């Protein structure tokens, strides 16, 4: 069945440094979504990418969808303490079910 792998599992950075998490699917996706879960909270939708090679930006966050629609990345420029949390990617198939990656937990040294 479809699998979505996400790396790294953990990332600890100094405040101000950049951060990137990568998501890889075993099958071609119809779309990919990114969610953020703050410690003690529930996942909150960030963005959805649909087109091959698509790049979207939200302030310091840059999201990319690979040309083959099998991988994606989230890059945060100049991290801030408010960026702390776990970032999940979710791969959407044509059947509308989303398979989530295991998440990347970001912690930040002030």
């Amino acid at each position: 069945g479809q699998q979505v792998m996400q790396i790294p599992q953990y990332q600890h950075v100094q405040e101000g440094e950049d951060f990137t998490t990568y998501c890889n699917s075993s099958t071609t996706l119809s779309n990919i979504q990114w969610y953020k879960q703050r410690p003690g909270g529930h996942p909150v939708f960030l963005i959805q990418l649909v087109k091959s090679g698509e790049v979207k930006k939200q302030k310091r966050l840059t999201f990319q969808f690979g040309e083959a629609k099998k991988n994606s990345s989230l890059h945060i420029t100049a991290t801030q303490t408010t960026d702390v949390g776990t970032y999940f990617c979710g791969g959407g198939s044509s059947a509308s079910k989303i398979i989530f990656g295991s998440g990347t937990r970001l912690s930040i040294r002030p």
Partner: protein
Amino acid sequence: GAGVSQSPSNKVTEKGKDVELRCDPISGHTALYWYRQSLGQGLEFLIYFQGNSAPDKSGLPSDRFSAERTGGSVSTLTIQRTQQEDSAVYLCASSLGQTQYFGPGTRLLVL
């Protein structure tokens, strides 16, 4: 409602007992999902309801787990004969399109 709600927020039970977890999705959302999240872990898909179609039960870990969705709205996840390894946060999400809106979860502890 304003968002997805779940009840109870916390549940402590004894091994072997049955539990029922409830999810109230956002009004009008046709899709409803249940996930399990163990401490510090990712989102484990359990079951997916879409409209009146037969649910996708492919993620249920054993036959002790079942779920139903009445009237295309409220859903109940039932765990029979609970085991300690069932302890986790159970998250419900609903959607109209592809974006999922998560509830606050039910934290289940099996002693």
